[in-house]
């Protein structure tokens, strides 16, 4: 371990370290974040849900998007797997189907950051995060 030789050292160190705590910090106040739930049931995993989730998490971390990704069970849209539910604070949740890693990034860039709707939304009138 290296000595912390100055107050700036500590600040720098904190910057480097806070990254690892991110998901815990985010879990502390999920209601103020964009909550993204990736369906991770067997069918989802089989259709590549894990890759989708990884892609989203990487993007969120890279661009410091105020969003938190959790995994969920089967949402009942097995025909459209992988599915991703996105809840932007103050808005109704939206479910996207047939999400590939590429689409996942697009969801973040367009829908989450800019509020643009993109293709692939599954119409729902029930079941949302934390209901």
């Amino acid at each position, binding site marked *: 371990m290296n000595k912390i030789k100055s107050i700036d050292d500590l600040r720098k160190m904190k910057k480097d370290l806070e990254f*690892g705590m991110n998901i815990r910090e985010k*879990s502390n106040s999920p209601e103020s974040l964009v909550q993204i739930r990736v369906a991770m049931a*067997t069918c989802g*995993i089989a259709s590549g849900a894990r890759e989708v989730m990884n892609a989203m998490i990487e993007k969120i971390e890279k661009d410091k998007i105020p969003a938190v990704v959790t995994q969920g069970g089967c949402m009942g849209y097995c025909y459209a797997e992988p599915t991703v539910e996105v809840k932007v604070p103050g808005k109704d949740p939206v479910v996207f189907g047939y999400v590939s890693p590429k689409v996942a990034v697009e969801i973040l860039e367009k829908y989450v950051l800019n509020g643009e709707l993109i293709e692939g939304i599954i119409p729902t009138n029930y079941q949302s995060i*934390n209901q």
Partner: protein
Amino acid sequence: MASYKMHLLVCGGTGCRASESAKIVEELSVEIKRVGLENDAQVLTTGCFGFCEKGPIVKVVPDNTFYTQVKPGDCKEIIEEHILKGRKVKRLLYEDPTTKEHIEDSKHMQFYQKQIRIALRNCGFIDPENIDEYIARDGYSALAKVLGEYTPQQTIDIIKKSGLRGRGGGGFPTGLKWEIASKNKADQKYVVCNADEGDPGAFMDRSILEGDPHSIIEAMAICGYSIGATKGIIYIRAEYPLAISRLKVAGRQCRAYGLLGKDIMGTGFDFELELRYGAGAFVCGEETALIRSMEGFRGEPTVKPPFPAEKGYMGKPTNVNNVETFANVPAIILKGADWFSSIGTEKSKGTKVFALAGKINNVGLIEVPMGITLREVIYEIGGGIKGGKKFKAVQTGGPSGGCLTEKHLDVPIDYDNLIAAGSMMGSGGMIVMDEDDCMVAVAKFYLEFTVEESCGKCAPCRVGNKRLHENLEKICNGRGTTEDVEYLKNLGKVIKDTALCGLGQTSPNPVLSTIEHFYDEYLAHVTERRCPAGQCKALKLYTIIADKCTGCTACVRACPVAAITGEKRQPHVIDAEKCIRCGACFDKCKFSAIHVQ
């Protein structure tokens, strides 16, 4: 650090460790590896989550899944179902005692909803043995801020302005205490952390030390800078091996990072830390006794003045604060005095940690804003009385405190209101009692403790508490008179008025407050020879209801003193003279034929 997508936080507090939480950590790690998710999910041991009733706890973030009473055997299912497939293991989720619903997310548990976690901010959140996690959560930033931006006096002013008061019992303003110590000139001063927690039923200090040891070290260094001390000593109960070991680990990490020692962070400030062990004497929670003990003597309190701030450890100015008080300090420095003083009541700022225990559904450690009512604590956070029984009283302040009743349920809890109600904050034990608890016996229990723990130095405490206890025993044994109750009152007042230290001055509180609030119950004992709660053995009368007795003789066989006689298949009788009121017959009877009065 690797980029994990999920963290599994396993409680490593004393309570949960007693239920094999270490084994759970191991199993979870094995299972994660087995399903190949070791790069996605990380298992961590944290400090206490506070929800000890249902331990061991495993919390999964970021989705805040809160698994309770997890056994090592459950780990496989958690990993395979939840971590791999995203399906929460429903049977392990917390079940709301009223709605019987499984709650998926800790954010929705009533237990946590009214809590504000300042002192416990890192407990159950970070790995206490990893300084990096502490630093990542702004750890040592408060120290850096103080060293870099404030003079000692400015630091003291912030603490003064925040309104923080000592959390160990008396509620003395912390900033003022620091200021007094800072003004006494000496070649050496000391900062002491009082971690000799001893109230039976209070364990917040231990939880903080186990769950967030660095916050205490940081706060002590801040205090050291403020008052001009370069040495810190943590006086900790030897019976807290886990807390001791976590503190030792934390100390080593700090030294390696240069956060303890010479020239901390290049600011020229030196601070060293040492541990001293308390060896089992409650009175050592009193600061002058604590100092005697640290010096290697019997832990007897000394007369004040001189106060420790003038002449403390080794005759040098010494500032003593308790663990919870210190735990608030870094947060106050970082977020400001105004933030802190915006929480709480007019004269009691911030939050208080309570150890909620007794006849309540959610036993555990809670941190709530000052000014919350007992009703909110007991019925919302605590989930109500166990077994649907009737609430009777809540004891706060441990052996120094008193009992609060139904009529106090809506009183906002703060230092002054508790004192006005005949109790005190104490270190924050909160023991809930129901209709089955005899208040005379409760007073006796506390006095037994005080008699055991009295140091013996001053006469009122040494002899007086003994006499209080003897009187209570007499009343519980059905031999008391109304004069005895009056004697208890006078003696209690005199002990409060004359005892040497805080222990003695508050020791009669459990008696006086129960006499005040439950006078009828005392009267029932002394005039009717009856214990309304049915707890006092000597006042119980066991009889057999002839109509219900089938003459099965199960009670005859259970009775250790052969007090029950009767023909087989005929109603039996209990000889009250011989009966020792052990209750064995009551437990054995399948026909509810034993009547207890």
